[in-house]
């Protein structure tokens, strides 16, 4: 990279990556079954990005290590999924992770909501991790039966990892939910903030239908009973009341994100956008 500044781009040169200081985004036109896999991969990736914000900042050292260990598993799962679906689309995992625009990310809105850096409570990180890891656990168990052998193989590994993700998150939910007056209050607030975004995890659309039709994976709404079976007893033990579900529906899995997503991507993608093709 030259350290001298390039002249301001003219209209004609704006589309030329070589003359620009940022890399162009890839053209992303997935089929419904590809969208299905990208949704899962992006959810793992963005959840990992938020968990990793706690690196060096968790309340205790052990938790710092725990959350980043979980993030590492999630990055690995995202890599496997994006590499696999990317092969069908002619892109590698890095192009999919770092060179897509916000509207082309298909993660649930829940995982992109602000984390530590925006001043959100540790309780938010714990509650989100519990809600999401329980969902992933039920999903991976179903994906082990996928008609796509590679997806079934990825799920066979990931389901074991998601078991201890759930156990770790559940321990914290009980400890803090049924803890002191202060911890209970903050857990209730976190649950109230996050709950409106849970409905999206169990919606159904054409992407789900295409995946189910192909035997690739389950429709999201079919995961609800298994998820309830994990979540309800833990909340009961934590003495936390599950909030009522309102009419609001988030839309991240359709590419329409909250205002927080752009900032997350800016941080996640800056290196690859600034130094095109840079590798470790």
């Amino acid at each position, binding site marked *: 990279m030259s350290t001298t500044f390039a002249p301001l781009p003219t209209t004609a040169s704006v589309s030329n990556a070589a003359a620009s200081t940022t890399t162009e985004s890839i053209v992303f036109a997935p089929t419904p079954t590809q969208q299905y896999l990208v949704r899962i991969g992006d959810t793992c990736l963005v959840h990992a990005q938020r968990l990793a914000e706690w690196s060096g900042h968790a309340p205790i050292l052990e938790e710092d290590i725990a959350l980043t*260990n979980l993030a590492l*598993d999630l990055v690995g799962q995202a890599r496997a999924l994006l590499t696999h679906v990317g092969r069908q689309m002619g892109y590698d995992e890095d192009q999919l992770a770092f060179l897509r625009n916000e509207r082309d990310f298909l993660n649930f809105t829940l995982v992109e909501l602000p984390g530590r850096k925006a001043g959100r409570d540790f309780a938010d990180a714990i509650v989100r991790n519990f809600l999401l890891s329980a969902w992933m656990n039920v999903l991976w168990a179903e994906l082990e039966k996928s008609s796509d052998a590679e997806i079934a193989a990825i799920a066979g*590994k990931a389901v*074991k990892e998601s078991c201890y993700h759930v156990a770790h998150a559940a321990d914290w939910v009980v400890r803090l939910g049924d803890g002191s007056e202060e911890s209970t209050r903050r857990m209730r607030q976190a649950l109230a903030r996050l709950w409106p975004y849970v409905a999206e995890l169990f919606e159904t659309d054409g992407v789900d239908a295409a995946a189910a039709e192909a035997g690739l994976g389950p429709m999201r709404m079919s995961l609800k009973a298994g998820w309830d079976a994990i979540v309800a007893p833990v909340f009961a033990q934590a003495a936390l009341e599950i909030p009522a579900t309102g009419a609001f529906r988030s839309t991240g899995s359709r590419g329409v994100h909250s205002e927080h997503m752009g900032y997350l991507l800016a941080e996640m993608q800056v290196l690859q956008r600034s130094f095109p093709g840079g590798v470790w």
Partner: protein
Amino acid sequence: MTAREPVSAARVTRAWEVLHGVLDPEVPAISVTDLGIVRDVIEHGDGLEVVVTPTYSGCPATEVIEQAITDAVNAAGLGPARVTQRRAPAWTTDWITPEGREKLRAYGIAPPGSCASEAAASNVQPIRLMARDVACPRCGSAQTERLSAFGSTACKALYRCIACREPFEHFKPI
């Protein structure tokens, strides 16, 4: 063809011997074969394919291990080697050999128990504030406590022996 077979077999056997000496970069007490991640060695024409099953989805040592395997096989004159991944069936700590477990213990890492007993124990309760008994790799006492479910690598937890007071790592069953 029949005349070449003993030669091939010897080459594959030799490759396994070489792989016994390739150490895990994050737990340099045990080899990749002790760990049970090398699933097969196949001869193709003039090259050798080493089939590896990754340990954890996000294990950062995967690429390093693959490079170490390629380098070792090539250095022994058995190459050109290439490493391929086989994800299914998923790796389990049950594949760690008895010798591997002993090497872990001698290195100060409590080896994993069997996954079957772990699964049976965790089916009872999703919430497990306490993990089950892990014997201290130094003094052998079963009086130990878990300090942290996560440690310096994805595969280990941090424990402390109540009898001899030494902290130690435990290779988690998965």
